[in-house]
């Protein structure tokens, strides 16, 4: 596998990260925004794993970081969805543009 340079993998992860960011910027539906965030987190996972694999195989820091990130992503998603559902109850919509009462 060593003929694949680290930078290529990093290219992938970076691209994925900013794809996610693009989604977050453009999607008006909260759930899709959440998805975009998941993409961002995943790209970070790729970073950690590949760093661990390529550069510091002596310890498993990256691996564990990834594991915990995944866990926390799950928790975050859960709470976020709960909030979104609650918001849907009050606003009858999950469009971010509709949830902008408080401003200035």
């Amino acid at each position, binding site marked *: 596998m060593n003929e694949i340079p680290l930078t290529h993998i990093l*290219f992938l992860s970076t691209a*994925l990260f900013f*794809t996610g960011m693009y989604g977050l910027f453009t999607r008006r*539906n909260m759930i*899709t925004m959440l*998805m975009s965030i998941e993409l961002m987190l995943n790209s970070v996972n790729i970073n950690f794993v590949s760093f661990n694999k390529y*550069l510091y195989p002596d310890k498993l820091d990256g691996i564990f970081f990834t594991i915990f990130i*995944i866990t926390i*992503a799950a928790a975050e998603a859960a*709470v976020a969805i709960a909030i979104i559902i609650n918001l849907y109850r009050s606003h009858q919509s999950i469009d971010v543009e509709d949830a902008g009462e408080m401003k200035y």
Partner: protein
Amino acid sequence: MSAYAIIFYLLSVFILVTGILAVSTRKIFRSAIFLLFSLIGIAGLFFWMQMEFIAAVQVVVYAGGIVVLIIFSIFLTQQSGKELQKPTRSRIFFSLLSVIAGFVLTYFLIQQYSFQPTSATATAVSVSNIGTQLLSTSEHGYILPFEVVSILLLASMIGCIVIAMKVES
């Protein structure tokens, strides 16, 4: 160029394409599916890096958990057939601008940096290793984070329940 490499490139193309589709398609249900594919692709990437455990976790938690959750919430909140409304032109423009700028900047910095691998001997990324370290208090033990995360999960669970519970009134 070995099959190994080809697989990598195929995977990455797959991940990127599905990811982009996930954030760009107008059908919310589809975008969820594309997200699923992209996540599975990432799991594949982990397999490719011989990180079976991580790959497994990825598949289980993301594919099995989060995406399902997302799809449920989509059903709860959205008539799935309906198309998502287009973002405004200016929004797209600024987003693209910042995304491209960010990507170029980041990748350029990565390019510049010369990563030095350590000479130290690798430890096997076996499930048993991970398991023992995850629960050991000794050197490289991750028991404390494990506990903290457990509390976090507990707390978020309670939070979800309180918030999402129907208000009987």
